[in-house]
């Protein structure tokens, strides 16, 4: 008899609990809204390569300078960034925290310009 009751009670309790909480509880971990990406810009022969990037907030960009001449990566945006002097072999990174078009250049060599679009 008790075994029969158990066989009935357990599913009954489960049904009541399910009814109270409105269905089977969702215990899965949701993935982030987008996969964070990492980009590299090479400063080679007095040019940024690539000179145009389109990224998302949260993505990161790393500038690497293999040129003999020191360069900077300096944005014109008020909330942008300035890498400071990057000597040969050094690098600087930035994590996108603002949206929009961000122009940047090398402070030492004014003809070196590039742009990052952050969505």
């Amino acid at each position, binding site marked *: 008899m008790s075994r029969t009751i158990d066989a009935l009670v357990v599913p009954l309790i489960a049904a009541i609990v399910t009814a109270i909480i409105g269905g089977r509880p969702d215990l899965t971990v949701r993935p982030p809204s987008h996969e964070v990406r990492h980009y590299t810009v090479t400063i080679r*022969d*007095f040019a940024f390569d690539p000179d145009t990037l389109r990224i998302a907030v949260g993505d990161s960009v790393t500038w690497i300078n293999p*040129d*003999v*001449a*020191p360069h900077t990566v300096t944005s014109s945006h008020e909330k942008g960034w300035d890498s400071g*002097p990057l*000597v*040969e072999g050094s690098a600087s990174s930035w994590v996108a925290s603002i949206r929009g078009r961000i122009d940047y250049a090398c402070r*030492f*060599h*004014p*003809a070196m310009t590039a742009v990052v679009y952050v969505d």
Partner: protein
Amino acid sequence: MPGLIDIRYAHLALAISEDAAVREFAETMIRDHSAVNDKAMTLLQDLGATPTDNATSKKLNNDAADIRKQLMALEGRAFDKRYAANELAYHRFVNNTVENQFIPDVQNDRFRDLLRSALKTFKVHEKHAERLAEDLEAHEM
């Protein structure tokens, strides 16, 4: 080394000029030529070689001494324009010499690669000097 001559011109500009664009140009010359010279000297040490003067470098050094005297006699806009004009002429001469005389004559591959890399830097300087000279002339009009 041609870079040493330009570094001395740049120090003169920093001592005399009050123009922001001229001073920034001069600082870039010091920064870039120092980097190229350091790399060249390191390579020469690796190769066990010693830089020696030739007819071209002797002429450059003699001319540079005269030009420094002329520059030191100037001030203000006159200095700025003369400095920019000299930088343009100097880089054109050096670039032509490096590209058409030094690089073809060099036997060592590593040194030739360094000269090719340095030439890219000097050509950027030439364009920068050209824009600087044009801007200084335009502000006079």
